[in-house]
C-alpha cells in the first residue's frame, strides 16, 4: 500500500473528504458556540452587600449570578470556622449543595444547614458534616471594603483563604 502511487481518483477523494471534514468541523464549532451563555449572562455584574446589616444569629440570602449566597453572622457558640470566616464572625457561602445542587435550608435550632434532597448537612461554617456532600459549601470570590463585601471579585482576603 505504502509504495503505491496515489492515483488521481484517490487524491480527489481525499481532497473532497478533507474539505467536507473542515466544513463539518466549522458547523459543529458554530453549533457548540450557540449554546454558550449569552453576553448579558456572562457580564452579570458583581454584587455588593453590607455585612453589618445582618444581626448576630441571622441569615440573609444574596442573589449572585442567579445563585443564592448565604450570609450568616455567627454567634460565639457556632465555632470559629478556621480559614472560612470573614471578618471573624461571618460565614459567606454559595447556598448550593455540593452534592447535586439543591438549596439547603437553615435549621436554626440545630444550627445546621440541611439539604432536602439527599439529607446532606453542613455546620454553621458551611462544612459538610453528614450525608453525600463531598466538600464544604463553596465560598464565592469576594473582596472586602470595610463592612461591605463585593461578590464575584477575588480580593486579597479571598486569595489568602484559598491558599489555606
Amino acid at each position: 500500500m505504502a509504495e503505491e502511487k496515489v492515483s488521481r481518483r484517490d487524491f480527489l477523494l481525499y481532497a473532497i473528504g478533507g474539505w467536507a471534514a473542515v466544513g463539518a468541523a466549522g458547523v459543529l464549532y458554530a453549533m457548540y458556540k450557540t449554546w454558550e451563555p449569552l453576553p448579558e449572562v456572562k457580564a452579570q455584574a458583581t454584587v455588593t452587600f453590607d455585612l453589618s446589616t445582618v444581626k448576630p444569629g441571622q441569615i440573609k440570602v444574596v442573589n449572585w449570578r442567579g445563585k443564592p449566597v448565604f450570609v450568616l453572622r455567627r454567634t460565639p457558640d457556632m465555632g470559629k470556622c478556621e480559614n472560612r470566616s470573614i471578618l471573624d464572625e461571618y460565614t459567606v457561602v454559595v447556598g448550593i449543595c455540593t452534592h447535586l445542587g439543591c438549596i439547603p435550608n437553615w435549621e436554626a435550632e440545630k444550627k445546621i444547614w440541611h439539604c432536602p434532597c439527599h439529607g446532606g448537612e453542613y455546620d454553621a461554617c458551611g462544612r459538610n458534616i453528614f450525608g453525600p456532600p463531598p466538600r464544604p459549601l463553596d465560598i464565592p470570590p469576594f473582596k472586602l471594603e470595610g463592612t461591605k463585601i463585593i461578590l464575584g471579585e477575588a480580593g486579597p482576603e479571598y486569595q489568602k483563604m484559598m491558599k489555606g
Partner: protein
Amino acid sequence: MAKKGGLMKWLDERLAISELWRVMMSEYYLPKNINFLWSFGVLTMLVFVILVVTGIILLMYYKPDSKLAFDSVNKTIMMDVSYGWVFRHTHAVGASIMFLVLFIHMARGIYYGSYKAPREVVWVTGFILFVLMSATAFTGYLLPWGQMSYWAAQTITTLFEKIPFIGPDLVIWIRGNYIVEDATLTRFFALHVTLLPALILVFTVIHMYAVRIVGSNNEDGIPMTKEEKKKNGIPFWPVFMSKEFFVMSVFLLFFFYLVFFNYGFAMDPINFQPANYLQTPPHIYPEWYFLAFYEVLRGFFFSETLGLIAFVASMFLPLFLPWLDRSPIVSGKHRPLFRIMFWIFIIDFVFLTILGKLPPTGLFAWLGFIGAIVYFIFFFSLPIISFIEKKQVASGGGQQ
C-alpha cells in the same frame, strides 16, 4: 393488500407498495409459541403516536419562555383552551405509561433471551430508544416550568459537573447559564419537540427493520428459519395484528381510565407552583420511571463518586446483556438459575422504585444500598450462569 384496483395498481407501479407490504406485514411470520407479552412492542408505538398527536396540540399554545411557560400551561392550556386539559393530561399520562410499556417490553426481552444472537442489533437499537425516550421525558418535564420541573433539571444537569476536568464548564454550556434559566428552557424545548422525536422515529424504523431480518424470538427460544415459521407460524398481518387490536383496545381502556380518573400520578402537585430558583421544595424526587436508577445513585450514600458511577452503570448495563450472557440456552423458560436471578432482579427493581420516593435517611439509606448491590448482582451473575450452563450443555444436559 388483496385487491389491486386503479389507484393501488397505479401506486404499486410507481412505489412497489405491495412488495413493501409483503415484507413488512403479510409475509412477516411470527411463531405460535408467543404470548401477550409480545404485544408490547406495538403498544409502545401506539403510545408514541398518542404523544405526538397530543404534543402537537400542546405546541399550539405552549410558550417556551421562562416568564410565560408556567402560565401558558397552567392557565392557557388547562383553563382557557377548550379541552386543553385533556391533551395535557393525555400527554403527561402518555409519557408515564410509555415507560411502563417499555419496561415490560424490555423485561420480556430479558426473560426470553431476545437480546441474544442473532438479535443483538434489535436489542441495541431498542436500548437506544429507551435512552432517547428518557431524554425526551426529561426535557419535556422541564417545560411546564414548575418547581418539580425546575429542580429535576437543576439536579440532573448538576450530575455532569462531576465529570473530571470538563464537568463544571460543561454544565454551564448545557444550561447556557450558571443556573437553569430561560436559555435552558428554550433549548430543552427545541430538543423535546424536534430532534429527540425525530431520532426516536429513525431508530424505531431501524428497530423494526432489524426484527424483520432476524425474526421474532419465542417463548422457548427455539431458532426457526423463515420457512419453518411460514409453515408453523402466523403472519403479522392480518393474524397477529387482529389479536393486537384486541390488546390495544384493552390497553386504551386502561389508559383513558387513567387519563380521566387517575391522572394524579403523572401530575405532581409541587409542579403547580411556579419555578423558584431560590427555594428547593422540601422533598424532591424524579418521576416514578427514574426512581430505581435514582435510588441506585442514593444507595451509595457514603460516597458520591461511587453513587454516580453506579447510577451511570445501572442505566447502561442492560446495553451489554448480549455480551454478559453467553449461555447457549436462549429462553429463561429453560434456565432455572437464570430464572431465579431474573425474578430477584424484577423484585429489586420494584423495591428500588418504591424506596426512591422515601426520605433517604436511617434504615432507608441502608436498604437502598442493599437494593443497589442486588441490582448489580443480577448482571454480574450472568457470566457465571452462562459458564455453568455451557458445561451442562456440553455434557448433554440442559435444553436447547
